[in-house]
């Protein structure tokens, strides 16, 4: 067997991290930094959308959904079916994907799996969601394909100049949509009556019920919002990842870590955790080591758990959305 070379072969001048040419100036370094930052925020924005789902479901119904990554993988295939089999244009397919997700990943998920399993405790439900994740992956393999599928980009490949750095328009659109969705959610939760009812349900469902809040409907709404966010994340991430049954594996883990790092019981924690993870991941790949990039989020998780177990923005024993 050939030994794997661990050192640099002769002629290789540098590897892995960014070791800039001495002739490259400060501007080039700054341009790289900005490009990495925007790319990281774009990825992080997607993680944040998925992480918010973890938080919402946990806060309203103590559901830890280990199929959350697959909830992002599946809507891309709804959209592909709408585009390739029915001939719907891209943005129409995105809307169809979101609507189907609301029914399948929102209402049906709650009624058919969460409600029956939650009576038996949090752990059986968590295991049931693991089984659901496997089922979803295998179903996509069987009914669509085990191979990656092309997925249209969100916009043309145009670069925008930001402080001298050529930043991809597609990345900016991803950031804009992710931030827009998060802001809209925050406004909904804090400025509308329904949002405040959801908060009350999360804080104390018994008192909320006494006050006449339709607790069951509020919980269902949380599942529906989670499905919408997951479908939106799917439309944003699949042009980069390509549509594949296994896409949820890393996404689910990254979002789970983001939710814990940010604070599992706070939506704003999930947002910060997601963005932080995306940026750290990109900087680690570029400036530290591409080989160890997958380990960096886990290191971050360990550090946060050791020094701030409730997460960066989480609160101890408090439940609000």
């Amino acid at each position, binding site marked *: 067997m050939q030994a794997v070379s661990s050192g640099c072969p002769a002629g*290789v001048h540098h590897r892995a991290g960014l070791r800039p040419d001495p002739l490259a100036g400060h501007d080039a370094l700054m341009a790289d930094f900005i490009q990495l930052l925007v790319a990281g925020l774009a990825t992080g924005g997607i993680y944040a959308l998925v992480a918010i789902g973890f938080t919402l479901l946990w806060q309203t119904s103590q559901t830890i959904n280990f199929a959350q990554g697959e909830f992002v993988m599946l809507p891309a295939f709804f959209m592909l079916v709408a585009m390739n089999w029915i001939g719907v244009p891209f943005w129409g397919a995105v809307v169809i994907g979101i609507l189907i997700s609301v029914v399948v990943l929102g209402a049906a998920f709650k009624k058919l799996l969460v409600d029956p399993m939650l009576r038996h405790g949090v752990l059986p439900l968590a295991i049931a969601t693991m089984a659901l994740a496997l089922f979803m992956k295998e179903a996509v393999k069987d009914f669509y394909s085990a191979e990656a599928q092309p997925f249209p980009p969100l916009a043309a490949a145009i670069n925008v100049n930001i402080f001298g750095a050529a930043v991809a328009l597609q990345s900016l659109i991803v950031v804009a949509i992710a931030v827009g969705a998060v802001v809209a959610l925050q406004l909904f939760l804090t400025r509308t009556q329904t949002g405040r009812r959801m908060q009350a349900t999360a804080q104390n469902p018994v008192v909320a019920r006494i006050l006449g809040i339709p607790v069951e409907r509020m919980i269902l709404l949380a599942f529906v919002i989670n499905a919408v966010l997951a479908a939106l994340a799917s439309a944003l991430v699949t042009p980069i990842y390509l549509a594949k049954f296994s896409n949820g594996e890393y996404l689910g883990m990254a979002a789970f870590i983001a939710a814990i790092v940010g604070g599992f019981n706070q939506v704003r924690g999930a947002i910060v955790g997601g963005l932080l993870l995306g940026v750290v991941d990109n900087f680690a790949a570029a400036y530290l080591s591409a080989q160890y990039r997958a380990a960096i989020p886990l290191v971050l998780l360990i550090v946060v758990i050791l020094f701030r177990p409730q997460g960066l923005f989480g609160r101890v024993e408090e439940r609000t959305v």
Partner: protein
Amino acid sequence: MKKLMLAAAFAALTATAAFAQGKPVTFAFIGELSGAGAVSSTNFRDGALMAIDEINAKGGILGRKIDLKQYDTQTNPGTARSQMQKAIDEEPYLILGPIFSGIVKVSMALAAQAEIPQIMGGEASDLTQQGNAYLFRTSFGQQMSMPKIANYIRDTVKAKSVAVVWVNNDFGKGGRDNFTKEMNSRGIKIVADISTESGQTDFAADVVKAKSANAEAIFVYTNEEESARFLREVRKQGLNVPLIGETTLLGQKVIDLAGDAANGARGHVGLSADIPVPAVQEFKTKFNARFKYVPDHNGIKGYTGVYAAAYATTKLGKFDSKALAKSLHGLTITPKDEPGILIETTWDEKGDIDRISYIAEVINGKQTITGELPKLGKATQ
């Protein structure tokens, strides 16, 4: 009465012989039908299936039809070993696959111990350098293809510096080491050495690194899906440098996945469904009609691999796995001998392959052949 008994005995003997002759011969396909290698292996498997159906339609090999049993390695080395053992327990005549070099590496010793010839799709250079008398390639090893790419970069692209983007698995490491050696021998600088992971989805940081290296060309040596994602990211970030690669950059599946972003990618292809050979074009049409997608080089590998085994067995006149392995060493099959081989092919004593190859570029979403290189055995420097 005596005549009747003789007739009965003759009938029984004939029936037994016919049964023995008609009993299907088992081929085992062990491939990455799911996981990161699914694109390559599905192509290989479908090519093999098509060849088997054609051979069976003509009566099989020496009167025996081929029965293909399939085993999924899930692109997982541990699973690959157990699947290989499972396949060997069924006592196949021949093993086809796996396709990924790392998966071949962990499982090939089992086939060799069982003395069953293994016609595989791996391209890592070291696979055939270990004295395994039962292992045979269906395409060039890296030690054969990298000199051709190096010449192309020096003579046609005229680049003085390159960035290398490679996948951190056996295939990628082997390719990167061979490529580096060839670049050094030609005085071309490698100004960035960027390793990526198998199954990697986000290439934003890698493209930024390649950009900052200011190389005159980028050599991309990753598997098909990763190549497509890398090409998309390059397009997204507006990097405008020649992207050079091998078949895993210029294959049809990569073009399908990357879309417009694949345009302009160029390099050396040892094997392609787009080469201007009528037999290959006919194969491509038949494959597309049957499986509803355009095959890449792996489809041809599976197809020609089966025909090579069928031709060698027919020449032997018997089903003997050990003898088949011996007969494949040093064998040359021309399309005149066996049309299913598509292009004249030679296997050397190590199981490495030799045939003509091509220079190609992706133009308007199609792989376009721009040059032909002769069979090796002639100097590549």
